[in-house]
């Protein structure tokens, strides 16, 4: 599984960061990023799915 954040949609609600500070960061201006390049490690796949389902701006997506 790989995930991306659409910077145009992200508004910095930080729900992703609250769910997994290992996988996500949010900068001082409320812009989120994925900390881990490439494949999401197995242990974080579930929380990655949760982040997708909880982002109020639909900014996180799974890519193949």
């Amino acid at each position: 599984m790989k995930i991306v954040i659409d910077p145009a949609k992200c508004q910095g609600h930080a729900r992703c960061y609250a769910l997994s500070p290992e996988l996500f960061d949010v900068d001082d201006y409320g812009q989120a990023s994925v900390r881990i390049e490439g494949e999401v490690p197995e242990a974080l796949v579930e929380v990655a799915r949760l982040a997708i389902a909880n982002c109020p701006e639909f900014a996180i997506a799974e890519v193949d």
Partner: protein
Amino acid sequence: MAERGPVASWATDFDVMDPAYIEDPFSIWDDLRETCPIAHTERRRGAWLLTTYDDVTAVAHDTTTFSSTQIMVIRPDEAPQGAGPGFLPYGIPPISADPPLHTWTRRLLLPWFSHRRVASLEPMTRALCNRLIDGFIDQGRVDAAEGYAQQIPVRVIATTLGVPDSLADTFTGWVRDVLEFADDQLKRIEGRRGILGYLTEEIARRRQDPKDDLISSLLAEEHDGAPLDDRLILGICALVLVAGIDTTWSAIGSTLWHLATHPDDTARLVAEPTLLPSAIEEFLRAYSPVTMARVVTTDTTYAGCPMAAGDKVLMNFPAANRDPKVFDRANEVVLDRAHNRHVAFGSGIHRCAGSNLARMELTVAVEAWLARIPQFRLEHGADVTWAGGQVRGPRSLPVVF
């Protein structure tokens, strides 16, 4: 003065300051979503009320048609007297601004409320909560709204703005006058005067003697090569004060009300503290305090409704968060709700700039309370009163433990 008299029909004559709405908005929203998801009123010079998730988020994202230049859900019938014309010519940006003013003023504020900065305020917030609890725990009862919830955000914000703790009660009074009693012309003006007068003096003091606080940092900023206009700084600081107090206090109060009246949820949260993060998001969803307004910029038709330039549109985030099309068991509090795309902090470019701070304060306030008061309930015959309209939450909440 605003029109009075009972609401004839919620679909065509709604009034968010009506006592019935403040008492129980939930059944009104459920009804409207089914029968008339875009309600209308002639009161207060015409407004529309949105209650579905899709409509609320769509309007929040269309900042061209729906402007933030009027965000109060109650339109004051007269301009406040005495504040002086043009006293806040820039309004209270970024909340009252559209791009481009919104964009750059928001960037001035955001770093002050980043999750990193907020984490540094956590120890102080926890100590504050414990100090408050120390003050009443031996009595076996407290008004959890006035004696706890209300005391927390104002002191945290005071730290950010660099103003002394001793003014906390005065600040709280002013903010309530502006938001909660906005229908009362005199109170609204008093509150505004208090806030602006105080901040004007603080800004002058910081210019002489800068500190490590938000006011000083705004004085040091430039935009387009020039320092910021004092009246802009005043507006921004007034916003932080008004936006950060009532809202957070209401969320803490509603959460404690829920726990006082749902002992099973309280016991579960005490037994399974790892549920706290999802529970906090769930309390924010189910008891979202804040409804915001927009003003229509040009005559338009939205979802078949003819909206005229100048009409107000109320984005009811709390109602959106109970939309059964988006949330299973929408009217229930589900502590471990896994899918919770709530919009308690708004949607789109105006997403609450203080949301990290609010989330931390709510979490710490509940955690500190439950650690020392794991069992509590409403006092027998308790008179719980609520504020509603723009910001919903309990204003008195007597509990025993």
